[in-house]
């Protein structure tokens, strides 16, 4: 068992190195352009904001015009939407989902609640600052944000991907220890 784990982690190391090499070449620009044009998001509505995703995904505001589509599994997705407040029971699943997603991955937080608690600022069941536990690339103001705001956020995210400033997943690797320590303060046991 131990040997297996070693092999896996070594494999991952090789993978990371390869990616960095690819970034070094000018091929990176093309790759980023291609990434931003086909963002698939995880079909996971974690809070009340999921209700505004429905008009966005369907005919009235039609998200597929931007090359975005809900994907049923996290392993094929690029974007994780945190749609509203995060309960501690959900946070565990969010972290699991986030860690399952392949690089590059982006997180957009909806509404007031993930920023500073929102209406549930004094609730014992919801965390107030989501960015203590996972890195977030973009915040959207509003309760709920209107579909226009969400579309704007997607556009901004695409611009950020093109610039290379949407680096949440790299920050997660860099600050992995503090992130993990914060997560462990919340949960007594993992599963």
């Amino acid at each position: 068992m131990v040997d297996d784990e070693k092999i896996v982690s070594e494999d991952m190391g090789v993978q990371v190195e390869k990616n960095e090499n690819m970034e070094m070449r000018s091929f990176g620009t093309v790759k980023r352009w291609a990434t931003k044009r086909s963002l698939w998001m995880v079909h996971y509505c974690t809070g009340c904001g999921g209700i505004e995703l429905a008009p966005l995904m369907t005919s009235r505001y039609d998200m597929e015009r931007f090359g975005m589509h809900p994907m049923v599994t996290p392993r094929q997705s690029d974007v994780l939407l945190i749609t509203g407040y995060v309960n501690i029971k959900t946070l565990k699943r969010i972290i699991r989902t986030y860690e399952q997603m392949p690089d590059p991955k982006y997180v957009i937080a909806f509404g007031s609640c993930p920023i500073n608690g929102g209406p549930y600022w004094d609730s014992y069941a919801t965390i107030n600052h989501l960015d203590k536990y996972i890195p977030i690339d973009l915040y959207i103001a509003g309760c709920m944000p209107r579909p226009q705001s969400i579309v704007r956020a997607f556009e901004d995210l695409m611009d950020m991907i093109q610039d290379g400033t949407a680096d949440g997943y790299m920050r997660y690797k860099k600050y992995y220890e503090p992130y993990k320590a914060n997560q462990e303060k919340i949960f007594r046991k993992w599963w």
Partner: protein
Amino acid sequence: MTIKREGSLFSPFRALKQLGKKPHTVQIPKVVKPPAERYRGFHTNDLEKCIGCGNCSRICPDNAIKMVPFPEYAKKEPGSMPLRPQIDYGRCCFCALCVEVCPTGSLQMVKTFTHVDDKKESFVFIPDSKVVHETPDFVLDTKDLRRK
């Protein structure tokens, strides 16, 4: 009021008829769909009119409004306080209770609603009468919709 209980194999294809219709998709961001007249968006505050009473801060169910000192408004008129509201949009739930209890009517809500940023600090600001928002999207115009 009963529905015929019979199915047909062609029922699913009836949707194809919709192909000839005009789409009802709102083509944002190319087309701007302005919000309604009563829409509760971000706040504006007439700093001259505001008397710093702090009613908004007390009624806020989310503890989002903090009164911050403004020394230049000190002793301007009797009964006014040198304080002005600072609003945290990481707390605000856009209920407009603060607008309802404002005795002078200086605190208002306007129709702009978009603020997207990667910095958390940008969600806390002191609303005043001119600058609705830090990002230039408060003009509902197609040209301004791209943040560049």
